[in-house]
């Protein structure tokens, strides 16, 4: 779906890369085809598993929210290929900076679905250990993850240079950093500034945009007259447009970009053109601003169906595989539901443990004072003292 033509528009000449067409048949692309030659059926099956798992967890998330068990849920349906396709080619040493919809990214990085749910239940302000998964925490105030990612990327480059200057060059391969954001956040000033800095300092960062066509209720045509990938040229680095519902194209483009970044050639931008099939969040009603016809049209481009068709026709994968995966996903959703229902809110007193890394006299005194205060009530249970936190927006 191209942006609406505008009298003053300068048409973009960037091609949209695709390796799997709408019917799941392989197409050739001069730039990207070489980057998928080594992908095996096992790899494709892994990608299929990851994508369907994310979608199943996503459905359960919406249900749990509707049942009053989560404060909020942010559906990702439709963006599975863009997320899995961009995370799978990264290395564990590559740091990722998500926004708040990157559930598939988080699962691919080993975050347990229930860990993530704890955040949306309002029981934690984080959810996972960023160092363990090399995945930064979700960003709710969108846009700020871009300067964070660029700053981190600049830091890794500086570390490398400092080690070199000291005569002890690092032997590890250069890291790359991925900043995830969407068409909406692309409009924010700090994203622009990040791109300027990234270019100025050759930061090893991939700006991965999931253009899901809607910034809450603002259509993409309002955000930009041209594909966002076009903007990269203005900063002096490469921008690629890919079919974001084509898992192979996303994997190939990401591999291409990461290789370039690791060679020290600076940032790359990928715009994965995809579609948010569901609501912006569970607090949103898309029927108020977009038409069913549009949703139906994108429904035909479902990334999961496309990969499934490819697995069937090009690789002869049997129905039993898809049935098994569906069963595994249902089991996972059931376990996750049980985990979520069993979650209890954190105790307020735990807060004192997180003020300083080491014991601290003042904090200890305040903790004791708090406990004494709490002990002064007739009713011992402190249900409301541990009110929900997190998910501020």
């Amino acid at each position, binding site marked *: 779906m191209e942006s609406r033509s505008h009298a003053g528009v300068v048409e973009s000449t960037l091609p949209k890369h695709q390796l799997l067409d709408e019917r799941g048949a392989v197409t050739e692309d001069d730039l990207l085809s070489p980057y998928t030659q080594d992908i095996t059926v096992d790899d494709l099956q892994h990608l299929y598993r990851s994508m369907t798992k994310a979608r199943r967890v996503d459905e359960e998330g919406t249900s749990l929210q509707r*049942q009053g068990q989560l404060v909020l849920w942010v559906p990702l349906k439709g963006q599975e290929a863009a997320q899995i396709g961009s995370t799978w080619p990264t290395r564990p040493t590559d740091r990722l900076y998500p926004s708040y919809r990157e559930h598939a990214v988080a699962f691919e990085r080993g975050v347990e679905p229930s860990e993530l749910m704890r955040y949306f239940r309002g029981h934690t302000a984080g959810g996972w250990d960023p160092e363990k998964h090399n995945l930064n925490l979700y960003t709710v105030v969108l846009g700020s993850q871009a300067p964070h990612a660029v700053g981190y990327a600049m830091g890794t480059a500086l570390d490398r240079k400092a080690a070199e200057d000291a005569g002890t060059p690092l032997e590890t391969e250069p890291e790359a950093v991925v900043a995830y954001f969407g068409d909406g956040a692309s409009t924010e000033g700090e994203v622009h500034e990040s791109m300027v800095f990234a270019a100025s300092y050759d930061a090893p960062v991939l700006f991965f945009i999931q253009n899901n066509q809607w910034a809450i209720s603002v259509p993409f045509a309002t955000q930009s007259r041209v594909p966002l990938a076009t903007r990269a040229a203005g900063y002096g680095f490469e921008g690629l447009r890919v079919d974001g519902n084509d898992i192979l194209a996303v994997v190939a483009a990401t591999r291409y970009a990461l290789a370039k970044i690791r060679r020290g050639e600076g940032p790359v931008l990928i715009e994965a053109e995809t579609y948010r099939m569901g609501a912006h969040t569970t607090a*949103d009603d898309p029927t108020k601003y977009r038409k069913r016809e549009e949703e139906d049209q994108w429904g035909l481009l479902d990334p999961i169906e496309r990969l499934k068709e490819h697995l069937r026709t090009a690789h002869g994968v049997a129905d039993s595989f898809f049935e098994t995966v569906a069963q595994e996903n249902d089991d996972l959703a059931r376990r996750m539901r049980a985990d979520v229902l069993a979650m209890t809110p954190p105790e307020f007193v735990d807060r004192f443990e997180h003020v300083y890394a080491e014991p601290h006299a003042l904090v200890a005194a305040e903790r004791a004072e708090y406990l004494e205060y709490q002990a*002064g009530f007739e009713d011992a249970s402190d249900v409301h003292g541990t009110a929900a936190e997190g998910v501020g927006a």
Partner: protein
Amino acid sequence: MSQVFMLPDVGEGLTEADILAWKVSKGDTVSVNQVLVEIETAKSVVELPSPYEGTVQELLVQEGDTVDVGTPIIAVSSGEDEPAGGTDPGYTGTVPQNGLAAGSSPEAPGAPQETSADSSEGQPLVGSGPKADPVRRRRRTRAGAPAAEDAAPGQTASTPAEAHAGDEAEHRHGWAGKLSRTGLGGAAVDLAERAGRIRERGGSLLRTLEEGVGEQTAVPRRPTLAKPPVRKAAKEMGIDLADVRATGDGGHVTKRDLLAHASGAGAAGQPSGGRASAGPQVSDERVERLKVKGVRKATAQNMVKSAFTAPHVSIFVEVDATRTMEFVKRLKQSPRMEGIKISPLLIVAKAVIWAAERNPDVNATWADTEIVVKRFMNLGIAAATPRGLLVPNIKDAQDLSLRELAGALQELTQTARAGRTQPADMQGGTLSITNIGVLGADTGTPIINPGESAIVAFGAIKQKPWVVDGEVVPRWITTLSGSFDHRVVDGELAARFMSDVARIVEEPALLLE
């Protein structure tokens, strides 16, 4: 054992929802995530999936009810402790009665959630909804508890302050009493308790505050509390805020109060203070009480706003529409119009556009210090839809050919009837038509759509005796009426405009001019 599902906050910070349609009924077997009910919140229409597996024992709220977040809406038997093989769909009665009562009875004691949430799975109602997570004060132990200092010695069951609070809740229609009866329970009693303490210490200010709201004659009135937009609206409507019954927090006059007052509802001498929702729920089968919400509410607000800000003047023209009827008939047979619905409304729409081009000042907005005359016509068409009256408009109707206008009219009405009218379709209207004739009405004095200065009502077309060239002959006659904002449009201009509309209806060929 019953598992009770309480209405969750499905948005962020929502307090209530309307029950639209139940998808299950008593006795149905439900599975986890099966859709139970469709609800509408201030933000969206959503389906609630079942958190439980089992048999529906009871639907605890009815379709059409507006219920607070945290209200038990359905009871589902867990099936675990039912005798093997026996699936008794009957309601076992283990749903706590106070849970049931909370939705319907004003006498329900406060804080029903605490008692109804006996099932561990039903308990957590996470969310930012204020009702889901009520604030309440916990009681301190006797030793050194600051609250006890105010209590009279020897009182153990209740402090005088609490007794006072209870007294208030039961016998006075004060704000605290009302609050406690709307389900905030503990919080309200706590507020009343605090209020009582302050009063005992001689807090005369608070006394004035409470009594000023409750008994308006005894104490000199303090200035009415209202937010600036409400004050502005009141000023524009020529209403003294002191006359308006206040239902907002802390005795604030809300916009709703103002509108209620303007529409006459405020005159129903109820004691003031307290919340509108705590109003009488007297069971009276001779009247039906319909909740005001959605499109009805928006229509009411718009109409009151228009009726009380724009001085309306109405003009009627009776006109011979025989040639319009013939023209419509010819158009219907024209191959160029194939597949497009043609009706006399099309000619009237065209006539209104034509007449507005000749009298541009009717296509305008009053903006206090200036009159904004539009050089374009976004022609509004009042449409009865499943959700109520909507006035979507045809953008830049002045640029459309007869065929394009017919197509636009058809799409507009189809979209409206299907309930798919988008908010943007209703914004930016400049002049409207209401087709009351299709309902058999002859004429009327329509109310102008806010932001516009004119509206034309198109009455029924009927065969009547008419004098043509000195002879009485049967002709197709209709009445066109128009209402105008007299601040913008004087009687003369209104008459010119209406007679121009009538000229086209009488002789559509003039469109070729």
